[in-house]
């Protein structure tokens, strides 16, 4: 049996184990270890396995993950999210669909301090959905805007998904953060466009609100200064050359805690919960990463990635055609697999292929995250849909599916724009570096 065939068998076993309820971390680690042993013998495989926990858990670059997770958790646990939502609501008041626009706007702004989509959906389900229901919004618009807005957190920096992609694809995390900025803002604008289109065609779905006075709007816009300050301090600090990503994450998290506590939006109990939750989330994420690293070692040994790249090149298929195939593949995969798992399993194979076809791996990382966002909100298995359903009472699944489906149009347009204009992702990293 050739190494490539062994690799394909390994993939099949991995997918089977994952669908048979084996935790993703265990499935990745077990298949990676056994596969490595089949190719190189048990002594080599066990040596790699024994050294893996130390080599990855003590990697300084990875320390950015728990810190950014904590920053997002503090923002979510404190009253910052509510304040932000209300500020944006007042700023856009007087138009139809203001609350849905405020939901997307608040998600985009919160995305600047939080890298987790699920945390944002959970936050918005408590902050925004009840407000929209009170204002007699149709559930399709209320629920759709909350699940779709939640995805902005993993594209607008800091993004945990981009960090993990950067680690697996060996790409610069600051460059990936810069690359996600414009597409992230563009997606927020497109989602607001979807809200506007819905309220244009179905005005009864979103009753108009009274416009706020100019002074009230001005006061509301000032209410956003905290998040802007944290974003410019941490993410801006990376590009200004003040901080490394880890330092930026630590300073940003510290500033978030101090500002939230100073404005009495954060109790000691909430802070403790955020810290305990973040450290546990980190342990869970890193255990998956440990399994993924074993699986990656195995995949490298199989030579599947260069063989696939060689095979595709020999077929002389157009690069765009192959990329369209990859896009369809990820959308289908997103129907069944959790987002981080998708990155960890597929990037070791598809990143070398994308590079061989002449695509930038920074651009590919952004495209991948947009595709993962599609997976998070498209029926039937979108994780954000489940999170919202678990957090909000009386959610009819059909309404939720229809609501999220409207917002998929925004992602489809962004994917098309990224394919047509790769500079949307590549311009900012080039200017900053």
């Amino acid at each position: 049996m050739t190494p490539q065939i062994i690799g394909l068998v390994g993939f099949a076993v991995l997918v089977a184990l994952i669908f048979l309820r084996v935790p993703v971390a265990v499935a990745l680690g077990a298949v990676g270890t056994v596969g490595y042993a089949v190719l190189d013998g048990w002594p080599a495989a066990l040596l790699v396995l024994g050294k893996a926990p130390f080599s990855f858990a003590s990697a300084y670059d990875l320390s950015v993950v728990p810190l950014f997770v904590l920053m997002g958790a503090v923002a979510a646990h404190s009253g910052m999210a509510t304040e932000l939502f209300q500020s944006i609501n007042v700023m856009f008041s007087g138009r139809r669909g203001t609350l849905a626009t405020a939901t997307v706007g608040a998600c985009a702004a919160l995305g600047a301090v939080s890298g987790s989509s699920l945390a944002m959906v959970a936050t918005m389900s408590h902050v925004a959905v009840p407000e929209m229901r009170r204002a007699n919004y149709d559930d399709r618009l209320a629920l759709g805007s909350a699940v779709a807005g939640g995805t902005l957190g993993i594209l607008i920096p800091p993004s945990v998904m981009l960090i993990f992609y950067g680690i697996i694809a060996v790409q610069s995390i600051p460059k990936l953060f810069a690359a996600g900025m414009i597409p992230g803002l563009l997606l927020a604008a497109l989602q607001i466009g979807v809200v506007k289109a819905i309220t244009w065609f179905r005005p009864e779905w979103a009753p108009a609100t009274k416009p706020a006075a100019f002074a009230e709007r001005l006061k509301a816009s000032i209410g956003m200064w905290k998040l802007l300050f944290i974003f410019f301090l941490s993410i801006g600090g990376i590009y200004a050359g003040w901080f490394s990503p880890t330092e930026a994450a630590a300073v940003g998290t510290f500033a978030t805690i101090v500002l939230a506590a100073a404005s009495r939006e954060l109790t000691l109990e909430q802070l403790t919960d955020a810290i305990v939750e973040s450290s546990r989330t980190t342990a869970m994420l890193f255990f998956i990463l440990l399994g993924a690293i074993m699986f990656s070692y195995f995949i490298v040994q199989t030579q599947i990635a260069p063989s696939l790249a060689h095979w595709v090149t020999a077929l002389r298929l157009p690069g765009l055609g192959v990329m369209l195939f990859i896009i369809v593949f990820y959308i289908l995969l997103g129907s069944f697999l959790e987002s981080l798992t998708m990155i960890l399993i597929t990037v070791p194979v598809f990143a070398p292929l994308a590079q061989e076809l002449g695509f930038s791996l920074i651009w590919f990382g952004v495209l991948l995250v947009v595709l993962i966002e599609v997976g998070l909100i498209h029926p039937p298995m979108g994780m954000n849909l489940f999170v919202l359903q678990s957090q909000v009472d009386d959610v009819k699944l059909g309404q939720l599916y229809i609501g999220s489906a409207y917002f998929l149009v925004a992602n489809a347009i962004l994917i098309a724009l990224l394919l047509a204009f790769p500079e949307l992702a590549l311009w900012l990293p080039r200017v900053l570096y």
Partner: protein
Amino acid sequence: MGPGGRALAALARWLGYASAACLIAMMMITVADVTMRAVFNRPIAGTYDLVQFFLVGIVFLNLPAVFLAEENIAVDLVDHFASAGTIGLLRITAAALGLAFLGLLAWQVIGPAIDSVRFGETASDLPMSLGYYWALIILGLFATLPAAGYMLHKGFGRPTRRPEEHR
């Protein structure tokens, strides 16, 4: 939950607090280092090593809690069409595989840890033995083993009918 389960839960909780303390320590030492560098042009020596040490603590000291709370990500798509008995069997198989993998991992880290101490390996800036890093890894993994074992044992005692079938 029996006395064994309560003891494991208490162990996982306290190790979880230690992990959370590592997270706070990591943030504070980094902020202090940045401040000292910016204000006094004197960075704190060994920050890099301490951040790495705390990261090891955050990850491995919280693994028992992750296993006990069943927070490992798993795809439960099969639940929609499999029988309750099949789901129970799959749960047990997954827990057994998890325990086996953890056991192998825990056993295999001992060798490199002993080698590291024997060869006197130290952190890059501080005169701190890498044995401390390995000790956290070993503590975390060996504390996770009984947690994974407990979850496997619990799997045998789960109801064999789906919740909706109870109604």
